């Protein structure tokens, strides 16, 4: 979830209100925007916004805009209107259609930049690129000092070695290819353009490079300072709608700072899209049905109350009907997809804590699954036999499942993106987890008797997930006199208590156990598990000094 860092003084100025003194009070206030205080001091406030869909809340301007409504300081839809056309045109090269086809631009004029504002804009740009822009794959943003640019612009393509310019933060010219190899942003985002033969490039009429989207801006033009008064914002991306949405986030934020919005015209050569004037700040409408909404809430609001609450949530009203409202949605509320989204905002404006909770006694019968019941019985018996239950992870490493257990390599369910070297696959048997547990406890008093009822995962070509969970019981006893007999006796006590009438314990061989002291357990002609004294090589592998005796059974097979 995005964390928004704001300067306290700036935030208070935009809100038109002093922030509360305590973190708890501030948390209560920020609850309206699903915000949680992460840091709060004299200079700064860090707010985690727990809504990955509300991109309009990822800037200090957006937070202030929303909060002013809930705090009754400014209600209703905030309209963003266009001051005029800038006359700037952007010509798009047809070769971009399968690379990064869309671009949207806006010019913000007459803005008095401060250091705080520039930092805020950079942070918003960054958040949008990362989250809404899916790490620049979907959209990416560029900001430029408009007065340094000579329109019209060309959104075109270039070969990797064809063009060179000075990328932001560097002082030497580099080709696009060199940028991908050497520039930190090139290394980070290069994979987006790399598969293509030609790469996107934004230039002006004098062939000055504005940027190499979505990688990096030019150091000459793509840098905003306090001297800039007129700004060009450009968004490129893979979907026209998301490009326009992203542009609206930037535009409304800067407009809240007093900038005037001027449009540009994008000329597309594509079959399906010819040209577009951007930004598109028109509001949308959506109807909410009063009865449906009250049915969702479980309490009754009147149309008048709804209208009032919509205003607090900063929606407009296009039309009030007998049984509903046509709601006007501002251009920055790109998250609204369904009337329930508006309904939630109405409930938040009403105040969750004003709603009276109701506990409905529904005619349902509770119960745990028969599987859990069965596992509970097994656990109860094992505890009765003096074993300590342990809980271990189902994720592990083939080294533990196989190498340390003296077994040959075999295929297990592996994770394609492991995060830690110790967790790279799912276990296909349970005993290794117990052996590993014992290896961490060699300093603890013996005898040690442990068990676990847990899942393992095996391949199953028939299953819809091509795998199957198997519930296993494994237990180990280890102390200076641990032996086969002790465990066989425990196993038989378990089987007896599970109601088995008949079972067989026959000699077998298994690399993890001592030959001649290993048995397979079967019941009703099905093999259900293995029992034996752990092989001394395995004990050595786990750095265990005492003999150990163990068994592992498939619980489903003794049901």
């Amino acid at each position: 979830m995005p964390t928004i860092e704001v300067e306290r003084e700036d935030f208070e100025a935009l809100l038109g209100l002093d922030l509360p003194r305590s973190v708890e009070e501030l948390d209560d206030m920020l609850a309206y925007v699903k915000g949680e205080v992460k840091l709060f001091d004299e200079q700064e406030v860090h707010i985690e916004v727990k809504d990955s869909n509300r991109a309009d809340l990822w800037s200090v301007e957006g937070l202030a805009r929303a909060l002013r409504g809930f705090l009754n300081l400014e209600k209703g839809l905030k309209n963003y209107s266009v001051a005029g056309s800038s006359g700037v045109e952007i010509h798009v090269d047809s070769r971009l259609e399968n690379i990064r086809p869309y671009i949207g631009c806006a010019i913000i004029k007459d803005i008095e930049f401060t250091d705080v504002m520039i930092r805020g804009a950079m942070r918003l740009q960054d958040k949008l690129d990362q989250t809404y822009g899916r790490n620049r794959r979907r959209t990416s943003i560029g900001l430029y000092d408009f007065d340094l640019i000579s329109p019209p612009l060309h959104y075109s393509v270039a070969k990797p070695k064809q063009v060179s310019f000075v990328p932001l933060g560097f002082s030497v010219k580099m080709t696009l290819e060199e940028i991908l190899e050497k520039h930190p942003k090139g290394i980070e985002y290069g994979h987006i353009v790399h598969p293509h033969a030609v790469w996107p490039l934004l230039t002006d009429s004098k062939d000055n490079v504005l940027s190499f989207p979505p990688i990096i801006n030019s150091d000459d033009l793509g840098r905003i300072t306090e001297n800039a008064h007129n700004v060009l914002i450009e968004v490129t991306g893979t979907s026209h709608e998301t490009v326009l949405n992203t542009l609206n986030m930037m535009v409304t934020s800067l407009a809240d700072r007093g900038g005037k919005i001027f449009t540009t015209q994008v000329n597309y050569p594509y079959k399906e899209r010819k040209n577009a004037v951007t930004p598109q700040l028109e509001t949308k409408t959506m109807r909410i049905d009063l009865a449906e909404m009250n049915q969702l809430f479980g309490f009754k609001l009147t149309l008048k109350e709804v209208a009032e609450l919509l205003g607090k949530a900063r929606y407009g009203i296009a039309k009030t009907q007998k049984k509903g409202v046509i709601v006007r949605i501002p251009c920055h509320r790109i998250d609204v997809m369904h009337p329930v989204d508006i309904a939630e905002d109405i409930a938040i404006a009403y105040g969750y804590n004003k709603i009276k909770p109701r506990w409905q006694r529904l005619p349902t019968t509770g119960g745990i699954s028969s599987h859990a019941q069965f596992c509970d019985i097994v656990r109860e018996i094992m505890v009765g036999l003096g074993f300590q239950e342990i809980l271990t992870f189902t994720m592990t490493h083939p080294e533990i499942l196989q190498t340390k257990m003296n077994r040959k390599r075999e295929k297990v369910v592996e994770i394609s993106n492991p995060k830690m070297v110790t967790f790279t696959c799912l276990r296909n048997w349970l005993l290794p987890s117990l052996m590993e547990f014992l290896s961490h406890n060699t300093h603890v008093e013996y005898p040690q008797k442990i068990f676990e009822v847990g899942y393992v995962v095996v391949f199953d070509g028939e299953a819809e997930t091509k795998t199957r969970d198997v519930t296993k019981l494994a237990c180990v006893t280890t102390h200076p006199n641990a032996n086969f007999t002790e465990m066989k006796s425990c196993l038989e006590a378990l089987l007896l208590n599970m109601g088995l009438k008949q079972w067989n314990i026959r000699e077998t061989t298994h690399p993890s156990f001592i030959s001649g002291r290993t048995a397979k357990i079967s019941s009703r002609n099905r093999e259900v598990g293995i029992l034996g004294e752990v092989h001394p090589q395995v004990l050595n592998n786990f750095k265990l000094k005492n003999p150990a005796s163990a068994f592992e059974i498939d619980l489903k097979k003794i049901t």
Partner: protein
Amino acid sequence: MVELREHEQKTLLALQKLGGKAPVDEVVKASGLAHAAVMRAALSLTAKKLAQTHERKQTVIKLNEEGKQYAKKKLPERHLIDSLVKLGGKAPIEKVAENAHLAKKFIPIALGWLQRKGWATIEDKERVLKALKRKPAEGTDEKLISFLNEKSSFIVEKLSKNLQSAVAVLRGRKLVEIRDKMLREIELTSVGQKLVKKQLLIVEEVSQLKPELIVSGKWRQVRLRKYNIEAPVAVTWSGKKHPYARFLDELKEKLVALGFKEMRGPLIELSFFNFDSLYTPQDHPAREIFGVYYVKSPKYGKVDTYKPAVENVKKTHETGWKTGSTGWGYHFSLRDTQRLLLRAHGTALSVRTLLSKDLEIPGKYFAVARCYRPDMVDKTHLSEFNQVEGIIAGEDLTLRDLLGVLERFAIDIAGVDKVKFRPDYFPFTEPSVELVAYKKDYGWLEFGGSGIFRPEVTLPLGVKVPVLAWGLGVDRLFMMKAGIDDIRHLFSQDLDWIRRKELT
């Protein structure tokens, strides 16, 4: 009455039999007790003023190797006199010595003692030996040799006066070893004397009560030894459930009591259940490799059995379908729905339940689901954990009911003092509510997330009633209850901690 233990009583009786005072060895013989037991009794009886011990110096005498030989073969002078008498009482020395079969080196010693004992004399200068006694009686030195030979060693002070007089002689002839020894004697005190007279019956003392004593009734005749009940004992580590597992068991019971049924589902899940059906767009950051674990091989499962639902979900993502939504507006990939992953949240189980033909309406369901997220394991993160989640499906369920459920959980499960609700966000619920609960000594605690499933979730699954979805932050609750601040303890690898952790 003084409490006497069995070995004390036996010692007292033995002393009485031995005349009130006797060395330890004799008491051992007379009592039938082990030496150590008698010594222990002597100490404790002394403490009880029933007896006292004395130490006395004694001289012990025993034959050395040479002495033992003489004991067998007699003294050399005896050999000479016997030989002389056989030769008629007068004979040359050489002749006598030859008949006596005496080694040459012993002859001077033997001649010396013959004369000293007055058994014979040497006549003239012709070296002729003449007997003075025909058969000299056994001397005290000889008597002492045979006596010591029988006894192996003896106390000098206890020898008869007569024999005592020979000690010096044998010592002079270097036929004996003499050393000093401390003698320990036990003596009854007058109190001890009186007690013994009264208490003649010995009661057998028993440490372990045995079956034969119980069955035979013999336990009535024995005394069960008193134990030192304060002595430390070895720790017994009982078998028990894991504290966290037990906590989850209890939680299940509470949920069952509230009318919830347990759901089950696979650890390895289809993206369809984990994401698509929950209206999470296919390019959502949560679906990227840092948000969820994917299976390396096999990569894809099968969704054939859920075909109508998959189709509905596809249309909903793309255009909103019949749900009243705008949809996400992108091309939905059917292939992506089949991508296999490690279940990232328990909500996947809720979807399986909603899609199941066994779904009951109204219905309440819950799961304690093992879930996975690619996090580095540390004090506050696990990459594998349990989530407690569930749903309530029914006609006329509302936001008020959702709050009611949350409040009930907070009170019944966490036992909190007050609750508060905050707006929350999940891609699949709207409205969404976070439960924050206040507990004395702990403060405000985020205890659960919840919401009403979006129509984009329920309608494609064919569910036409509202579905309340909830999840509880049980890990934090357990940590609070168990007083731990490291989440790794939930799957503790520390046996000692688990053994010592009280069950609450």
